[in-house]
């Protein structure tokens, strides 16, 4: 879902750039307030894991692939603001060093895969977790469902940006992007739940170090 340069108009790139910079500024402040000894390595490991896992595209229907985004996993483990920092770091490195995602499109990619994916998954996860009294299953289901929504909502934001840029009309972009990402999102949900169940089985205490 990494938007290359050329797909976005200057106003859309600039507007999403402002959103991303503002989000990062708040994320630095919020993370700074609450970060402790145990969150430091968790942030590093999540960034490394998300980068590596994003390389592993998995096939979905019709000659299309998808890849793990990771914002939901980070949001469940550390909260949405730390997630914005982690995802922004991943996206900046991918754009600057690996030419994956345009430099001018960085704001849009951070807005979609960091801010929107991180916050949507976090609140959906929290809602389901609370609704079902925070059991082990509720945590996994909440995280999985939140992860599905994170990918679908990020893809719809991406479609909206393409439409506003005049690259593809709404009537085509919304169903095309949303449709395929409803499939890719299933992979996101399963991977997120699987990683969390591994953490639960081995180091359940790490599920309780959320920053925000």
């Amino acid at each position: 879902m990494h938007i290359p340069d050329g797909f976005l108009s200057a106003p859309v790139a600039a507007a999403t750039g402002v959103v991303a910079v503002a989000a990062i500024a708040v994320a630095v402040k919020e993370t700074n307030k609450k970060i402790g000894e145990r969150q430091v390595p968790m942030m590093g490991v999540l960034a490394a894991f998300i980068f590596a896992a994003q390389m592993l595209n998995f096939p979905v229907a019709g000659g299309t692939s998808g890849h793990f985004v990771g914002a939901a996993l980070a949001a469940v483990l550390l909260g949405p603001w730390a997630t914005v920092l982690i995802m922004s770091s991943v996206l900046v490195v991918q754009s600057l060093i690996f030419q994956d995602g345009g430099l001018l499109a960085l704001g849009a990619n951070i807005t979609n895969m960091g801010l929107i994916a991180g916050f949507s998954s976090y609140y959906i996860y929290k809602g389901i977790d609370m609704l079902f009294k925070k059991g082990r299953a509720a945590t996994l289901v909440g995280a999985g469902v939140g992860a599905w929504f994170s990918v679908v909502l990020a893809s719809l934001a991406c479609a909206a940006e393409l439409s506003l840029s005049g690259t593809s009309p709404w009537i085509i972009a919304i169903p095309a992007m949303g449709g395929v990402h409803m499939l890719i999102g299933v992979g996101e949900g399963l991977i997120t739940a699987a990683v969390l169940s591994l953490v639960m089985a081995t180091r359940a205490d790490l599920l309780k170090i959320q920053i925000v």
Partner: protein
Amino acid sequence: MKSKWWIIGLSIALLLAIISPLASKFPDGLDRFAEEYNFTDKAVEPFFTVISDYSFPGITSDTTATIIAGVLGTLILFGLVFGLATLLKSKHEA
């Protein structure tokens, strides 16, 4: 049990980077959409390239080039974000 859990986490990430040549070569959701509706050519070439396409330059074996790129990126992100988090934590204590 209190052995450094994050070393295990980082090892898992590195393992994923090492198996990354197994990734599906199909275009992803956005790329596929761009191909289907003929706007792929709207994409402009990157302003500069470092390790483009997750393939370390100058290596003849594609598999090796991808593994080196993946391992390098994984270590860069671990170092960068670990450093950033350390910085945020130290300012928090000061």
